[in-house]
């Protein structure tokens, strides 16, 4: 017996679902999801077709489909009509870009400094490497002293090299390193001072921080280079590089102080209270309880201010110091290599060097952020 309301035949199987994996599904999902998306994709592709070939042609050497002159080429190659970047010029001037006017016979000294720095920095940045404290002391205290004597000379029979002859990437790295090393303690002290309950100390710190943060770095550098000699007792001369270092350090310590303050404010009050209930003095509670946690919180922020500092070092070229940017700028009027693309090649090179350092730092900061993020997110 059959009921009219009971189905007799099977329902047809549904069609297979549209692919959810594979390149076509991906394209449908992320390139052509809606008509507007499709339009945007078309426009973006048109833009890329327009922009990429000329850029590639400019950068890539002749061997691989570009017009650029590879290292080892001659200046005549660079002067050819429609020649791309003149990488030969960069490789010929490389030692100038790295060491500035440092005497070539003494290049081994900056080389040792670079190698030593890399040797100390890598274990310091690797979270799992042992001997962190020793490593930190070596890097932040011993290393700068060694660097100074190595580069400056005048001891152990090394020929003295005045700072006027330092230059290039070396000076850029020195300024950022000294800026970083000196601004960390200064910034922490300022941040603590700003959080302090003592009114005079708090006011002084607030004034200091807000003053430096309000003015552009270039005015600070001008001030350091013009006014610092006036402030010193008569007869003392302040080294030009040192003036810039003072300016950069003061400036970046103010920014660092604000970053650290963020970490101090993010700590729950209970931590402060627990520290005092243990009977710890102010400095002990800060050193053992508060700062280790606060600094850990703001490591990404600190690295970001180091990136800003590293980029800002390029400004010292305005007060006449031969940092990387200034050497590139100076070399671009070099007649021996003069060609239509000389200046632009130099800027591309300098931009690439700066970019490598900053990008590496920002990736490191993201990596630390992920590592330190101990899952308090919803």
């Amino acid at each position, binding site marked *: 017996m059959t009921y009219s309301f009971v189905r007799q035949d099977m329902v047809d199987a549904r069609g297979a679902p549209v692919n959810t994996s594979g390149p076509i599904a991906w394209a449908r999902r*992320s390139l052509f*999801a809606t*008509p507007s998306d499709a339009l945007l994709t078309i426009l973006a592709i048109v833009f*890329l077709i*327009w922009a990429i070939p000329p850029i590639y042609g400019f950068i890539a050497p002749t061997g691989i489909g570009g017009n650029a002159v590879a290292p080892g080429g001659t200046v005549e190659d660079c002067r050819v009509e429609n020649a791309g970047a003149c990488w030969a010029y960069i490789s010929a001037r490389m030692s100038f870009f790295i060491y500035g006017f440092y005497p070539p016979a003494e290049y081994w000294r900056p080389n040792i400094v670079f190698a030593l720095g890399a040797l100390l920095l890598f274990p310091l940045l690797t979270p799992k490497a042992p001997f962190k404290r020793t490593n930190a002391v070596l890097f932040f205290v011993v290393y700068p002293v060694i660097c100074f004597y190595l580069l400056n000379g005048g001891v152990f029979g090394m020929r003295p090299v005045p700072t006027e002859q330092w230059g290039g990437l070396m000076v850029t790295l020195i300024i950022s390193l000294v800026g970083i090393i000196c601004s960390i303690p200064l910034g922490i002290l300022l941040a603590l001072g700003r959080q302090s309950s*003592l009114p005079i*100390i708090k006011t002084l710190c607030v004034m200091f921080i807000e003053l430096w943060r309000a003015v552009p770095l270039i005015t600070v550098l001008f001030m350091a280079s013009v006014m610092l*000699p006036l402030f010193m007792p008569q007869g003392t001369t302040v080294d030009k590089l040192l003036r810039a270092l003072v300016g950069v350090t003061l400036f970046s310590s103010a920014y660092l102080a604000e970053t650290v303050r963020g970490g101090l404010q993010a700590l729950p009050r209970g931590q402060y209270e627990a520290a005092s209930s243990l009977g710890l003095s102010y400095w002990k509670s800060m050193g053992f309880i508060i700062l280790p946690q606060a600094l850990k919180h703001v490591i990404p922020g600190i690295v970001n201010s180091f990136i800003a500092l590293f980029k800002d070092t*390029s400004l010292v070229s305005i007060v006449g110091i031969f940092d990387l940017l200034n050497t590139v700028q100076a070399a671009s009027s070099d007649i021996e290599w003069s060609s239509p693309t000389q200046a632009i090649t130099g800027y591309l090179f300098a931009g690439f060097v700066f970019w490598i350092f900053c990008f590496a730092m920002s990736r490191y900061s993201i990596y630390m952020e992920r590592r330190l993020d101990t899952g308090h997110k919803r």
Partner: protein
Amino acid sequence: MAAQVTLSAPPRTAFYNDPVIRGIIYQILVALAVILFFAWIILNTAQNLAAQNKSTGFDFLFQTSGFGISFTLIPFDRSSYYWQAFLVGLLNTLLVAIIGIVFATILGFVLGVARLSSNWLVARIATVYVEIIRNIPLLLQLFFWYFAVLKAMPAVRQSYELPFNTFINQRGIIVPKPLPDSEMTFVIVALVLAIVAAIAIVRWAMSVRTATGHYPQPVVWGSLFANLLITFGFGFVAGSLLTGIFPALSGIVGFPLIAGAVLAGISLTPYTRFGRAFIGFVLTWAVMAFLLEGMFAFVPPMVIALAAVLTAAAVAWIMIKGDGRPAAEGKFPLALAVLIIIAVPGLVYWLTGATLNFEVPILERFNFSGGVQLVPELVALVFGLTIYTAAFIAENVRSGIQAVSKGQTEAAASLGLREGDRLRLVVIPQAMRVIIPPLTSQYLNLTKNSSLGAAIGYPELVNVFMGTTLNQTGKAIEVIAITMAVYLTLSLTTSAFMNWYNARVALVER
């Protein structure tokens, strides 16, 4: 027997272990150290200045400067005073900051939204832009724009000619100079009034709709009328473009007028979106053909025409599939506002007989005569600042939008709001609360970074005042103090605004 309780006296500590007294002692010591330090500096400075036979004081501001400035907003020559030089520098700084802020905000918001786009390619392009620009020093970018791009432009005689009588060469960009006559004042006043009126009408209409669920009747009729007029205008433009593409159509007398009228007629029927799609198709076709022709010089015209038609078809498709709400009924009265803003000043322009002529730059033997010359320093600085700051603003916008929890979007979706309304009514207002404070500090950064113009010779505050004036007068302390005071004022004003804003928009928590 009562227990004997011996109350021990409070522990005797030396007075210097009392935290309060300690604090006071510390502070006195620090204050003394600071005072001594400053006294030492001031003493040294006084001695140094005496040794160099220099005087102090601000009277130098009223001496004649004796130097010229290449780009000024107010009249300035060699016989002007130093305070005028200061003013020139300040105005130039503000000019570049304001232009930069406007462009950087637009570019930054576009990039920030693009980074979050569900379109993979668009998001990737925006990410690459941000990651490249953010990690290269601004000064280097300025050098690039100034020395490698603008200074590498052809000489005056081989200037590139851009549309609208604009020329670009080594000496900068030369644009036509507007020559408004005195009646133009009325037009400008009318424009301002029209904008105010349009905003007022729209707000009123919105409030009525919030209260009653319907836009007020006059606004609906006005919108309908405005829609008709504007559709006619667009239809006319589309018709003229079509006659340009198909010369055969020019045989029909007044084809653009007919097209406009037909399309305006369609806009009254329920098929309005087909009419709009047609207009969109023609306009996109024309624009894309023009753009592609400029971008790809070596591609055969057939391919370009095909690409343009395809893109235009995509636009038309979007517009046909787009929202089917009737034009003037439930829709935001945008057309009415646009009509008011265009028509009122237009009417005044016609009634008062005002004229707006443009002085077109003309190439003469050695240079252009007429027009406004935008010096390359200004152009490079605006370019550099805009491109650099936009990368940072994009990051702020992105993090602001990401800070709005996903639940908000889902809640909006469950209320039945469509994609655009979700963004406009729910996500963006909440994101703005997060975006505005860092955005303000980016504006401040841009203003401070404009001081880098000194490095490429743009006469802004640092260049004119800390550079030339300081070198000529030698009044280091006064000049640096004034310059820093200017930036300090700008910065403190901005933070005051920010605090006020934060207090206004802060979430009221339980």
